[in-house]
């Protein structure tokens, strides 16, 4: 675009402008430099370090840089626990994204209906975002601790008991079931949805759905009203307006939300540590907890590094399509 502008100026001007532009370009580059350097060191440098360590035999406090190839990857992938963790993180991410997007959208539509007291409801839905996962985890672990139900329930089971809804009592975070349970020959762990993960999804959704709501709300209010109005004039029902106009217009918001929620979900750590500690068994264990446990409790630094690299690869799988899509829409713009 700058070239197009340059043509409009006299030759002497062009020379000046070009110099000007290059100087500004230089400044622009310089402004970017600190961040680029910092990211290069603290992100890519550390990833490289982690990648290198994952190929060594470092186990114990003192470093050991003996090269062992992919041995650590073999070890962790063979272990029941890490296989379980991969299953869990996939399940958690799917449920967490779905529940947040749905609940966020529903809340946004509710708040967008412009009822009286909208601001109060909006604040109530949004405030959990201000609370740290550690606090969230403690509170929800209390709520979802089932007790010896039905005779001696605690937490939500106790509430249900008092409301006469005993039938809804469940083992919640102590539920050992994996549904639907199946186990291909290559897997050392049961595949399916670990039921104990669902309360964790509820807690995480409690925390982040308000934020998703805020994003959708912003999206909704950015949709020009006349567009919807025109459709209504053409005889479209409210549902059709929503399906054909509102939802498609919200797609970019959904995408941003998926990225922000996705990175929280794949790295989830504090919440699991405080809410379930990974139990029952390893039913709610996730790679983040595994990395911490194996690195710092077992001092198996190299194996922890290998697990971290696997996490990063999983993240890349999620984010690369987004970036490609982003680049493509950019071109269209």
């Amino acid at each position, binding site marked *: 675009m700058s070239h197009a502008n340059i043509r409009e100026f006299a030759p002497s001007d062009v020379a000046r402008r070009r110099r000007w532009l290059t100087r500004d370009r230089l400044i622009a580059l310089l402004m970017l430099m600190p961040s680029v350097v910092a990211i290069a060191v603290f992100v890519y440098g550390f990833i490289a370090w982690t990648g290198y360590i994952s190929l060594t035999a470092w186990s114990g406090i003192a470093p050991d840089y003996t090269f062992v190839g992919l041995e650590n990857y073999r070890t962790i992938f063979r272990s029941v626990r890490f296989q379980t963790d991969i299953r869990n993180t996939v399940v958690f991410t799917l449920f967490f994204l779905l529940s947040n997007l749905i609940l966020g959208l529903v809340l946004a539509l509710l708040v967008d209906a412009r009822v009286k007291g909208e601001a109060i409801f909006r604040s109530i839905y949004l405030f959990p975002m201000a609370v740290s996962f550690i606090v969230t985890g403690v509170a929800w*672990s209390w709520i979802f601790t089932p007790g010896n139900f039905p005779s001696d329930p605690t937490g939500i089971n106790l509430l249900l008991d008092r409301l006469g809804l005993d039938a809804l009592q469940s083992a919640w975070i102590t539920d050992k079931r994996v549904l639907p349970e199946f186990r291909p020959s290559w897997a050392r762990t049961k595949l399916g949805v670990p039921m104990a993960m669902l309360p964790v999804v509820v807690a995480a959704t409690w925390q982040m759905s308000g934020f998703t709501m805020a994003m959708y709300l912003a999206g909704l209010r950015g949709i020009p009203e006349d567009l919807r109005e025109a459709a209504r004039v053409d005889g479209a029902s409210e549902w059709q307006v929503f399906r054909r106009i509102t939802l498609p217009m919200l797609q970019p918001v959904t995408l941003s939300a998926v990225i922000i929620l996705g990175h929280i979900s794949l790295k989830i750590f504090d919440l699991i540590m405080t809410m379930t500690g990974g139990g029952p068994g390893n039913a709610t264990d996730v790679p983040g907890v595994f990395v911490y446990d194996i690195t710092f409790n077992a001092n198996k630094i190299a194996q922890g590094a290998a697990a971290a690299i696997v996490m990063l690869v999983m993240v890349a799988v999620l984010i690369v399509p987004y970036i490609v899509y982003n680049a493509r829409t950019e071109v269209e713009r």
Partner: protein
Amino acid sequence: MFGTRRWTLLAALLTLVSVILASCGAPADTGTTGNTGTTGSPAASTAAATNASPSAAASTAATTSASPSAAAGTTAGSAAAGAGKLEIFSWWTNGGEADGLNAMFEVYKQQNPGVDIVNATVAGGAGTNAKAVLQTRLAGGQPPDSWQVHAGRETLSYVDNLEPLTQFFKEQGFDKVMPQLLLDQLQINGEIYTVPVNIHRSNMLWYNPKVFQDNNLQPPKTMEEFFTAADALKAKNITPLAVGGKDGFEAAHLFESVLLATLGPEDYTKLWTGDATAWADPRVAQAIETMSRMLSYANEDRSAIGWSDAAQRVLDGKAGMTIMGDWAEGYFLSKGAKVNTDFGYAAAPGTDGVFMWLSDSFGLAKGAPHAEAARAWLAVAGSKEGQDAFNPKKGSIPARTDADKSLYDEYLQWSMEQFASNTLAPSATHGAATTNAFQQTWSNSLEVFSSNLDVEELIATLEDAIGDLSQ
């Protein structure tokens, strides 16, 4: 006008960039110094290890001479002695344990006036966070002067970062006042590395005396008696055995008592030497079966409650018994409960006469910034005065056998007698018999077993982990 503003901004920008570049350039050099530091210390430690066998004195000499940074640290420490600093790292952040630690600090301050103690405590995650902080500090070349570690085999995980203290034990006379079996079990490759400040007992059964009285039950002495009592309680709709799991170690804690009961102290202790044949003993499988049977008498929600919640259920009479280390006593007392009326105690079934111990201890960092002050600290930690200041508050007994019994409550006095007269066996779950690497797999695999009762999976995981016992 625009021009001057631009140039000042540019100048500011350049300084910003240069500052960041400089600071990012620094890690490169420090990375290398860090590396030489870390590669230096294993060398020093191997020197120490090779010289260890002839004489302890020679090995300490070897360490100090081989590692100049350590020597420098020592001189700096002694130069600053009297008006220096001392950093003590532990996970005692709250309650009786923090009070006990502070009481020990008071003793230290009386003897070493002018030393400023930095009480670096890290709580949370059942000690996990403390281990994470310690690990990064050691890897980053920032060791605290002295840190808490479970006495015994767990010390092996830190051996490259600790000064041997065998000679120090002799100088201080600790070797004369601690039981010989304990001193033996403290040794790593022929050296003692840490000073134990207390002893806890792992194989303890806690029960509700009222519940037991109402059902005409006696605390079970054997496994058979345990199951008889459990049946009686189950018939009355009382959870026979309260088990936790939230803190990650409860299932493993229960299992080590079962193993001890099934194998007896001698064969039990052999399991932790890293000898695979010891694990092939059919009684190990038998112990797993017993554990499985015990869990059928336990609460279903065990993964969601911590050991203290389990203890609370016993106190409330909702459960009859729980098997937990004697820090449970501290919990009961903090809830205002009275011994023998609100809670009762006995050795875990089938383990009477054996004292399964675990101990908190402190070591001396290799290259400690304030080594002299740290040695003085270890002298206090191992002294009668220090231990008697610490333990009554912490709710544990001293590692020394010459303590002043009148300072301790009824249970602790009983425990002291047991400690002096029983056979000693080291706890696996709490690091007396196992390394960090093994403990982690051990706790996790038993937590999984507590959930799925899959005997084969447990055996397979433990077999894979035997190698971790020696690293």
